[in-house]
């Protein structure tokens, strides 16, 4: 082993320590946690997880999160695919300004928008629905998806489009059956980033929901404060929020790095 590999190894250990601690906590009883320090769970218990899987407030939190995150990923991709195609293939009035304007939407602090978002979505009758959160997250996910997809599309030679037209394909048929499959890695990467940023964002999701669409992370903060100091339960819920992301990242591991490398800036 080369000595330089120590750098990533130490870094990964540093990353895993707090995660280990969260996992260890989730298998401890509240008494053990508050009773003193122990590196491993002494009275190994699954009670914390049992509570989450049997109480509907908890497991509905997961369903809600997964539902609006998936909805957001689908909306973002459907809207971003044609837009990215236009930015990559056509030149039209104002295209560069439009592209920069899209990116500026990532710069607006979510804390600034929380209250106006609440008013906006209440006034259109979408408050406390999954659709509201999914649409609100489009604010930062669509620009990112357009940016990533544009990079992938620009690396596909224009001859592909021209050959398809010569062969008599209509635009729609070409776009759906030839073009999109040729950039499926890019679609995967864009989907991953939409999923990721929608999954981790909480401020807007919390502002736009009350009961029916409340995300899991919000359930955690509210339950934790109302039920006192239930650290074990909090830790177990935290561990479960890591799992969906870990599954998604496993599937796109080979494309992540590439996705950014091809993006344009």
């Amino acid at each position, binding site marked *: 082993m080369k000595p330089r590999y120590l750098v990533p190894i130490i870094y990964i250990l540093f990353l895993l320590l707090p995660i280990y601690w969260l996992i260890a906590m989730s298998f401890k009883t509240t008494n053990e946690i508050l009773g003193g320090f122990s590196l491993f769970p002494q009275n190994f218990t699954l009670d914390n997880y049992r509570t989450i899987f049997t109480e509907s407030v908890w497991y509905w939190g997961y369903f809600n999160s997964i539902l609006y995150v998936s909805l957001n990923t689908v909306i973002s991709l459907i809207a971003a695919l044609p837009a990215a195609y236009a930015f990559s293939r056509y030149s039209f009035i104002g295209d560069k300004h439009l592209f920069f304007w899209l990116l500026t939407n990532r710069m607006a602090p979510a804390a600034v928008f929380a209250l106006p978002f609440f008013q906006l979505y209440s006034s259109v009758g979408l408050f406390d629905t999954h659709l509201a959160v999914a649409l609100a997250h489009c604010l930062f996910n669509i620009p990112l998806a357009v940016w990533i997809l544009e990079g992938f599309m620009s690396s596909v030679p224009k001859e592909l489009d021209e050959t398809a037209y010569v062969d008599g394909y209509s635009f729609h048929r070409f776009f759906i059956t030839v073009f999109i499959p040729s950039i499926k890695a890019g679609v995967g990467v864009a989907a991953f980033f939409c999923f990721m940023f929608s999954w981790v964002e909480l401020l807007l999701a919390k502002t736009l929901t009350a009961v029916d669409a409340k995300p*899991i992370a919000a359930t955690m903060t509210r339950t934790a404060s109302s039920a006192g100091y239930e650290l074990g339960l909090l830790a177990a819920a935290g561990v479960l929020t890591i799992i969906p992301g870990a599954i998604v990242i496993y599937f796109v591991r080979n494309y992540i790095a590439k996705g950014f490398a091809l993006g344009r800036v």
Partner: protein
Amino acid sequence: MKTVNQHGWLFVLPVLLLVAFNALVPLMTVVNYSVQETFGNNQFFWVGLRWFEEILQSERFHAALGRQMLFTVTILIIEIPLGVAIALAMPRRGFWVPVCLVLMSLPLLIPWNVVGAMWNIFTLPDIGLLGYTLNNVLGIDYNMTQDPLAAWITVIVMDVWHWTSLVVLLSYAGLISIPEAYYQAAKIDGASNWSVFRHIQLPKMKRVLTIAVLLRFMDSFNIYTEPFVLTGGGPGNSTTLLSIDLVKVALGQFDLGPAAAMSLIYFAITLAVSWLFYTLMTRDDR
């Protein structure tokens, strides 16, 4: 060469509508509030630019802005070189590459309030792994709920833990796009490791590093959830960054006018710095 085709606008329309709905309506609401005074009951009075003047002169805003600048500059100074160094040290191919990438991406996928909660239990003085080790094994007096310096260091270490991987992923993507032939040419010329880095790797990483600095700048400048869950802005006001202060004014005191004016100033600063950096970095390209 791209074809000039005004139909491009049709393709962009759905994106335009969705983003405009989310961006312009709330932005106009904020602009509206920023020039008015309200006493509740939906009664508003025009006050012109008074809130802007008050905020630009208020010591509270200066202090929060100062803390925010200090935080953002510190994490950029740590995360960017560290991320590049880790990317350089990583293997380029083989079984361990995906393993490294998956493990390193883990922190990026944890909801932000869970990150805060996780660091909270990690650093509890007597029962957290870090808190216990520092206090009882190494004998360092550490309690971030009392000591402002400890709170600052904890918030910064948490951000480094959370976001350095993004810099690593981006730099690594830049590195693997360098053709092998470049390294062979450098070897023939007898170039040192430093000159390979300075003249081959760094220029090739310029684009992705620009993205990394921009993303890290924007996101750290807007950071709210993680430090709020970890320290609540305390002890005292010591870790009250701009967003935390803003939410205190807007929702805690319900001073909508000043809060709106503050968010516009805040947004303008982010926009100006990002634009300046973006223009400087891409100036040579075209």
